[in-house]
């Protein structure tokens, strides 16, 4: 399945199976189009920053019987204080349903989508666990009384 992206993203390999070669192909970008091989033996391709109004990413695996076949891909977006908008692409082959044969991380670099990234929270609002336990016990007693 071809995945469509808009704008600026950093694409990196997170993990992959080593039973067969895999690759991802970027098309339609300003300067990063190409085939990126994730081989069973070699080192992973370095992270690549991809720019472009609209570009696509396709993941394939090298089937011993049929050659390069398109993988089924699941998108898992997250938005966190540390990384902002990230869309993980998990590739599945042979309909196993685990989507972990190749995992790519696509992190948005568009400032409007990530205006404060990383959000740094310097504060620690914790209290001693015993204090909380004490509160819970008292609270429980009050509820029972009611």
């Amino acid at each position, binding site marked *: 399945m071809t995945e469509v*992206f*808009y*704008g600026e993203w950093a694409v990196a390999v997170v993990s992959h199976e080593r039973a067969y070669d895999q690759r991802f192909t970027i098309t339609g970008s300003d300067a990063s189009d190409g085939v990126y091989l994730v081989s069973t033996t070699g080192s992973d391709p370095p992270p690549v920053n991809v720019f472009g109004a*609209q570009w696509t990413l396709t993941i394939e695996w090298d089937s011993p019987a049929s050659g390069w076949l398109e993988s089924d891909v699941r*998108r*898992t*977006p*997250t*938005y*966190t*204080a540390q990384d*902002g*908008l990230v*869309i993980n692409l998990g590739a599945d082959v042979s309909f196993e349903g685990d989507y972990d044969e190749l995992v790519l991380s696509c992190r*948005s670099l*568009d400032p*409007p*989508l990530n*205006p*404060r990234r990383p*959000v*740094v*929270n*310097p*504060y*620690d*609002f*914790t*209290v*001693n*666990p015993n*204090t*909380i336990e*004490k*509160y*819970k016990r008292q*609270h429980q007693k009050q509820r029972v009384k009611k």
Partner: protein
Amino acid sequence: MACIEVSGKPWTRKHDNPAVPLFASVPVTAFPNSLECLIELCASHAPADRLKAAGSHWALSEAAISDRTFVETHDPTNTTQAMGRTLDEVVPGCLDAAFYEALKRRRPAPYDREHKDENTGLYPVHFETGKRVFQLYSELDLLGDTSDPFKGEDLPVATLARQLAGDGNPSYLGPWAIPTLGGAGGQTVFGALTTGTHGGDIHMGPIADAVMAMHLVTDGGRHYWIEPSTLTSLGAPLTDDNALVALYGQDRFRGNQPRGVDNFEVVRDDTAFNALLVGAGRFGIAYSVVIGTVRQYTLPEERRLTNWEYVKSMVNDPTSSLYTKRFLQIAVCPTPHANFTKHLAGVTKRWNVPLAPKAGSASVPAGRDERRGPVVNRFDPLIQAPRFALAGNSHPYSPDPAHPGAALPPSFLEQACMNANFLVGVLQEVAKEVEDFISSNGAVIGGTIAGVVAAGGGAALLALLPVLEILLLVLLAFIAALAAAAPSNPRLGQTMNDLKDSLLNRPDPAQRAAGLFIWQLIVFKLFSSQQDDHDYEAISYAVMDGHDYLDQSCDVNGDSIEVFFDATDPMLIAFVDALLVFELGQETVGKAMGGYISLRFTGPTRALIGMQQHPHTCAVEVAGLKDVTGTQELIDFAVTLALDPNFNAVLHWGQRNPSNQAQVEHRFGDTVTSPTGNLHAWRSALSQLTDNGRLDGFSSAFTRHAGLEVVEPLAGSLTMAGGSPSSQPILVSWDCRDNPPATTVALDVTAPSGAHHGFASLPLAGQRWVATTGTGTYQAQLTAAIDFNGEQRTATTSATLTVS
């Protein structure tokens, strides 16, 4: 019959800053009060005098803003007569015979303590478009209400039921209801439905999907009765063509035509109907609408306070336990708790049950007395309908958990919204907890602190104790000032902003930390009190219409957007999480959201550009008080995310919606390279009803920006004549008038020799003589082009003439 028109009136919306009208003075404000007047208004306006209709000014979008003439179907100041009648000329007067017979055969179950089915029966109701939601649900509920001496039996809304009873079927003589509602009833019904307004009923579309027919007056004064071509659920069309023409083809409705029948048309077309449902006012002014109502019903409401981090994993799964009932809403607190790891969330569900009577009665439903009340004026000329004591004039229904069926007086919050002092109680409780925490050296915590903190080392918070003491004094001083303020003190938003600034805008990092801690306590307390567990049941509208009509402070100078996703799309969760991260970031630099995030779920709509385009659609509302710095920033960020193609969300047409043409086309189709999709069908319907955009009187800055216009030109007619004998010139004639006025026309004539004669910047219709240069075939090609928002679309036609 001319409409009342005035010049120089201010124009503003309900949620704008009450101190500063959006427009201090607008050129013309028109107040139509009849179909004749509406037709005359649309027939007689000058070409440059564009018009736009508004309802009760509840929308926050710019869809109701006119280029020049503002047409008020319901004067928001309630001083000029509204177009608010319920009509009985069509229902039952023009009903299709087979439809009526099918109605007569049905026996809708009564509204009583035995029956609980969802959406029982069908009762069509026809009314003018200036009628407000609370007025309609009150009139429908009056039917057969034996507790009211009026009973509503001689109201136009009851005419069909009476006729059916006279024909041997009295089962329609009971209360009826709108199948679904948004969270408030102050909008006009048509204003709400034509912007896609919805409830949270997960299997139902928005209010628009209850519409059965619309009566539209277009630019030029022509008027159309528009129904779907698909038959109603009764297997017959709603109305009879001949009866409609006999009624609306009368000469008093002739507009600019010689006869009334020349000025009226019945359109039975799914595309036109589905386009007009959510039409952004671009098609014209809807004079009236028929909606299918259902038997009155009772809804229980169950609300549980939990946290977003717990429920969010279930949101994308429509088979999860969240989706077990008819209605689902998840209200999320933007401010974190539990040491920044969680966010409070109130999960509300509703479903259908038999009539739940009020305390001390066997048959009067709970909520009716508090939310509708008795008829106080059988015919109020201002609204052209009966006036109810409490419809649009009451606090939300507040059930008394100790006495089922009984209502509590207005809640602390509701009473307090009359002014900003309600905060005092909450702040005092928070101050007391902070005081105890400090005096016990961090060893004693109350419920609010227990919610905001998490178990951990605790050293950082203990180190803050001296600074907390300073901030506590600040808080106490604020409370004292607030308590001493006169009743005319500032709006709630202004008070919240002052409080936020005194806590978060502090140069010293330690004081900022302590201020943030107290701010989180206050928000935790406020949100918990508003979204705490509750269970009650009441009549449909008392549960669904939660608006506080007596509020003077909480609901002004607000801003909101609503963002629609496929509920199964994981980008929905990322969107909400992004807002929460943004809020976390801005609260550490002195800003905060004075509002909430709310998710509601609906079924799909038939409206072509309605926002509910998925089997399960989730609407994320982000709303707050603009007085609080940080609210606007969060909503702006939400807009940025929603319009980004990676999120590809759809914005509500009735709330802030800055979508441009490219963004609308990305979501609804009809791009230059792919002229297909729902927007293409919508524009085709607009073309059909406006002579392909020639009649552009209802175009506005909003519709032009969003591309809700005719963008595809028609090449029109092209003929060639003359050239005989061959020495004579050829006369080329064309007519492209059925196009938007800004359409450009070019002509190219090719001689048999291959020589070209080109003519650019031609008028939309005209003639040109072209000299002949010999015998043979001459070819003319006419190109009409529309350049709009950076996109160009063209249409060509050609003609040939052989000169011998």
